[in-house]
């Protein structure tokens, strides 16, 4: 408790020292201490994201319950008194509709982030019904997805038809395989095949296991008169194989298989049997594969097992099976009555597609590739055209997408002429770490960067460029100068625009005591002036996943994004000589939870331009796509790369 109080005082003091709109506040701390509460409350209330609460449907209840027993920890969520943190999520006038409501005076904010079962209901944090509704809990959750498609298959009315025709009549594209082919009898799908081959059908297009939640529900009917030696079986699988491969054997990512002779349902993952259940009656089963890396089996609507699996690649839903005597006149084997396939889109921070190297070309008649770019920052203008700002030599370059290409960019200036270079006393030694933002209201680019004076002091500068301009025009003074924030120096900034219109920045700072911290700032005038919001306690966040902090040597390059009702913060992390990219999520910038179980969301590839490391992320979410540009490392030089993933723009529990 005392620790939390201590920090809340610090936050309050800092806030007051640099109240919003005051670039050079210069107000004596002693005077401000009493005046801290109100501004802090307002500021924090306004940056709470409105999306998270509603994002997860109706599966949220009393937010306070997980938090109720949070005594002894930072129960105020880091603020002056218990009422202050009510402003984080409470439905006060500054909150947008849909924000989760909590009881006044409860200390709940941290309780959903502390990896403790505060209310003793056996559920931690995002697993607790009282926290599930948070937008940050939706990120990376394989059950927090948006329904993308659904097909329902029935075999009634298909007597005498081929399975392909049966499904075509239901406007379902499928391809059958095997010899003899599967057939429909009594409204049930019977499988052919024998001990050397099997039959079945692929009933869906390729489904991306890294992005989509796939639920296959099927009604299984046991075999009749099947002795211990019979082979009859029927199954549903997710497989990465194509049709011709399936004829000989199924290599399933996940599989439910009903055996006639064994009279049991087998649940297999990656070829290994995980569980078996006796089955003698017709039953409904469901196979659910989540892009978060978990696969489940449901029996008559109840989840009976959930295990991890490798959610990579493109899979198809396959109905398949064997029969030793696959003729209509013999006792039927195991069969399928009906099948439903649902696919949903989730937001999985580690679910990136293939990586590509960015092509940065100069704007000269004979374009030449630039191969010494660093610290990229991606943004889109009002027309949807992408641009990348990057650091090179002692300047910042701007490059725009060529013909809408996501990976080909052309600089706005010549190879020797940066779009921005430092000339003011506070940035004349060096400018670096650009962060590009599109200012829709003023139809201009804004770039934030780190400017270093000859004395070594590092500030965050701001410069603007008209939509079609080649170069930036620097502001007269830094947007954030160390002296104004009582810190020693600033590092890389990451900026995003909140749906409500204000701008949020996360930047690394070196305190006067020599500590390195990430801090959040807010601007209501499109980045001209900034007020500090809070310190981001990265250490506590990473500790939630038992990450060995002692092995982390460096964290830097924050990149911030608002998506699906939460802030997502991406950062570079170094262990030894190797860089990777990690990510956190938060609902209000104060408390953070590691994404991807604390593992990097992007690591070195095994080959290519980023085979030894990745760093300097810049993440942008647009519609159903999240893009990430970054610096790839091969041990000799850095080259810029891009990857992307599909994600649900807003989550909803299915």
């Amino acid at each position, binding site marked *: 408790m005392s620790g939390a109080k201590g920090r809340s005082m610090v936050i309050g003091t800092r806030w007051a020292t640099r109240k919003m709109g005051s670039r050079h506040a210069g107000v004596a701390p002693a005077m401000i201490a009493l005046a801290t509460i109100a501004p802090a409350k307002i500021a924090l209330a306004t940056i709470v994201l409105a999306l998270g609460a509603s994002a997860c449907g109706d599966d949220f209840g009393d937010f306070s319950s997980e938090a109720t027993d949070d005594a002894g920890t930072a129960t105020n969520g880091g603020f002056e008194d218990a009422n202050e943190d009510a402003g984080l999520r409470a439905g006060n006038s500054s909150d947008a509709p849909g924000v989760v409501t909590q009881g006044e005076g409860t200390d709940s904010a941290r309780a959903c982030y502390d990896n403790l079962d505060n209310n003793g209901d056996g559920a931690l944090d995002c697993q607790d019904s009282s926290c599930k509704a948070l937008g940050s809990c939706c990120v990376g959750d394989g059950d927090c997805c948006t329904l993308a498609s659904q097909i329902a298959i029935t075999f009634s009315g298909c007597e005498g038809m081929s399975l392909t025709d049966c499904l075509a009549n239901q406007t379902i594209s499928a391809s059958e395989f095997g010899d003899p082919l599967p057939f429909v009898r009594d409204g049930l799908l019977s499988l052919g095949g024998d001990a050397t081959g099997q039959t079945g059908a692929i009933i869906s297009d390729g489904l991306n296991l890294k992005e989509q939640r796939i639920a296959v529900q099927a009604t299984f009917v046991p075999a009749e008169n099947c002795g211990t030696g019979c082979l009859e079986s029927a199954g549903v699988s997710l497989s990465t194989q194509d049709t011709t491969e399936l004829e000989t054997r199924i290599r399933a990512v996940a599989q439910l298989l009903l055996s006639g002779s064994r009279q*049991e349902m087998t649940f297999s993952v990656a070829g*290994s049997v995980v569980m078996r259940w006796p089955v003698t009656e017709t039953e409904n089963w469901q196979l659910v594969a989540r892009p978060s890396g978990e696969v489940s089996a449901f029996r008559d609507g109840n989840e009976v097992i959930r295990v991890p699996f490798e959610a990579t690649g493109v899979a198809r839903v396959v109905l398949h099976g064997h029969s030793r005597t696959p003729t209509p006149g013999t006792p039927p084997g195991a069969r399928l009555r009906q099948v439903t396939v649902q696919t949903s889109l989730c937001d999985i921070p580690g679910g990136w597609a293939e990586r590509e190297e960015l092509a940065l070309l100069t704007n000269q008649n004979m374009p030449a590739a630039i191969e010494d770019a660093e610290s990229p920052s991606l943004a889109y203008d009002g027309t949807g055209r992408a641009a990348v700002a990057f650091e090179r030599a002692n300047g910042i370059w701007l490059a725009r997408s060529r013909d809408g290409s996501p990976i080909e960019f052309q600089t706005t200036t010549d190879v020797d002429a940066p779009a921005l270079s430092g000339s003011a006393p506070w940035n004349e030694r060096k400018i670096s770490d650009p962060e590009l933002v599109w200012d829709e209201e003023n139809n201009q680019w804004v770039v934030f960067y780190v400017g270093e004076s000859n004395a070594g002091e590092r500030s965050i500068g701001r410069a603007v460029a008209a939509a079609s301009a080649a170069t930036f025009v620097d502001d007269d003074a830094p947007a954030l100068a160390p002296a104004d924030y009582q810190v020693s120096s600033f590092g890389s900034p990451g900026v995003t625009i909140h749906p409500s219109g204000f701008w949020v920045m996360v930047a690394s700072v070196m305190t006067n005591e020599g*500590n*390195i911290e990430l801090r959040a700032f807010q601007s209501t005038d499109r980045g001209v002036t900034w007020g500090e919001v809070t310190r981001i306690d990265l250490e506590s966040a990473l500790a939630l996943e038992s990450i060995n902090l002692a092995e982390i040597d460096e964290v830097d390059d924050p990149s911030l994004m608002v998506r699906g009702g939460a802030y997502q913060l991406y950062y570079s992390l170094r262990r030894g000589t190797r860089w990777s990219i990690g990510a956190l999520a938060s609902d209000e910038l104060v408390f953070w939870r590691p994404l991807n179980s604390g593992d990097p969301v992007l690591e070195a590839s095994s080959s290519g331009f980023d085979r030894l490391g990745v760093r300097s992320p810049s993440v942008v979410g647009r519609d159903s796509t999240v893009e990430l540009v970054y610096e790839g490392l091969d041990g*000799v030089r850095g080259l810029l790369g891009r990857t992307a993933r599909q994600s649900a723009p807003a989550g909803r529990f299915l």
Partner: protein
Amino acid sequence: MRALLFCGLSLWWTGCSIFNAPDRDLIPNDGGLDAMPDGGPGDGGPDGGPVGEQNCQNGIDDDGDQLTDCADFDCIAQPECCAEGQKGFFAAEWDRTTLNEQWLSAPSAALPRRNSEQTMLVEFEPDDVPRSIIARECIPLATGAELRFRITPQGNRSCDDDCREYTAIVWTPVTNMQSGASLLRELAIEIAPNGQLRVTRGNDVVPTPALTLTPLLEHEFTVQIAPGLRSGGRPTLLASISFRAIGGGDQTVSVLDEFAFTDQDQLLLESPGCEGVAGLRVAIEGVGESAHVGEFEVDTKRCVNPSQFQRPAVGSRTLMSGSSDLGFSDTWSAEGLGAPTLVSSLSGSAVRWDLMVESTDVDPDLGNSARIGYALGHAQTTVWDSVPWTGGDDPKLGDDPPSCLVAPCPDGLVSLREPHLLARLNSGSMLSALSLTFAREVDASTCTDCFDIHVAASVPFAPATAVMSSMPLVQRAQVPGDCRSLRDPSAVPAGDDTGYWVFFTCERLGQPSEIHAIFAAADWTVDPDRHQIVIRGDQIGAFAEGGVRGPEALVETRDNTATLRLWFVSRSRAGETSFSFAQAQAESPIASLPALEPYPGNPVLRANAAAFGGCPGDDCPLHSLAVVRDAEQNSTLRFVVARRVNTNSATSYELVPLEQFLRLP
């Protein structure tokens, strides 16, 4: 531009690995400190006391983990526990031919200048741009190495306070550097003109005592590298650096002791020189004339590294299912092949290899649809790579065919699986007796897919001669707990002919499988009172939460101390299989089993391990393994790993030979 360092600058950031000495004792039960009760003798926890094995040669179990000296995982990196490898594995002199043939220059083709005798590199270009020469050949480090070189600081000369001259000896994975930048440094020893010494990793300075070499005096450096473990159990490399001034009293000065500088999975493996054992390149980097560098020499070591497997230099052929490699008839072995057990003995001047496996005539994948039967086959050879081996056309034990899904076949077929041979060798390492334990299917009408353990006490040496008799050894009713089926037996002698310890898998319905052990007397009568659970998956990590199985035990005795080593299959909840390792020591004969200490770096072998040289299919999940000490090269363990090869349209099974250094007790 580059980021602010958390370490060194930040008090807020708690601890930095590069500044911390590695934890030398990694016993999970004690949080990585030691195995002793808090406050008791040997406790290295909060109350103080020895941490880890303090002395690796004193014959005492200093930390109370029941592993003494070199058998203790703490001693892996100690020189006294490493055998010599190849002397002069890499040596370089500075004549032009050597420089051109053995070294790459970067970032340009400019070589450093040499002294007139060509015994010293004396100067890099004095233009403020770092330059380097990088050894073309990779130096294998994963089993240890020692690098020696001499260096002579040149004094301050005209280099002022802003002097940027330096000379560095670098361990690096790369073969080039960007103009104006340094090499990627996994570890570097950097000498300033005034003799000031610092050790760096990447751009970080590794804390060392403040040390300055005497200008113009020659110093001999020794860099010892050995495999080790980080506190989380991740295999890493440990570097110890020392030097002595030649003619300066010869006192050895320690610069760094067991510093964890790079993880083993970050080492080079495909590069020339490191095909079998992963390593790095050595380089010399510098600006100007900071120090003169003398000749280099690298010796490789053979430290015990449970994670280091390699393909054998001799006998490396992979044996395939569906082929005639083992000389078996297709009628019972056309499809599945696995669960190997291996015996190594001497036959005249050659090594005789006896291999038994389980095999079947039907696609094992059909096992989820119907019952599949297996039989046991025996093959033998003295030339591993020469196929076919001498194998029995018929099963050594079991039905032919063992499965009946295609053609009608008689009732009463019994599936036999997972053979394990226990060999008795005479003083000349020749085979004198063989016993066989295996899993035998029980009546399917009472329990589907259930097995008990049986034993054939006397097994004919000739592969074609069938085993005539066997008897039940361990039955489910004799095993406390909820074992639905008993599988994968592995019997080892308890010592002094008192009996055997039989390790086996306990399969539980809906629960992760466990490894158990039970004592059997010399006549193979089990003692149910001497049963215990040996390994549970949840004890050793997420990679084993789906269960452990397939134990492969090895017992070796010296001075009445028996060292028990156990390799086993670990399975994650997602079904991914890997191999893990545990060991213990006890007084011989082993009256009661000591608690086995899992290796903190488990799993020791994964399906994608470089030692396999790739996978000929889409994926190659591991199935089971056999291990035996090579009867001829007795500091080598020979493994046979059974894996499944999934290709686009078919599945096959392979037996892949691997080996590992393990000195005799």
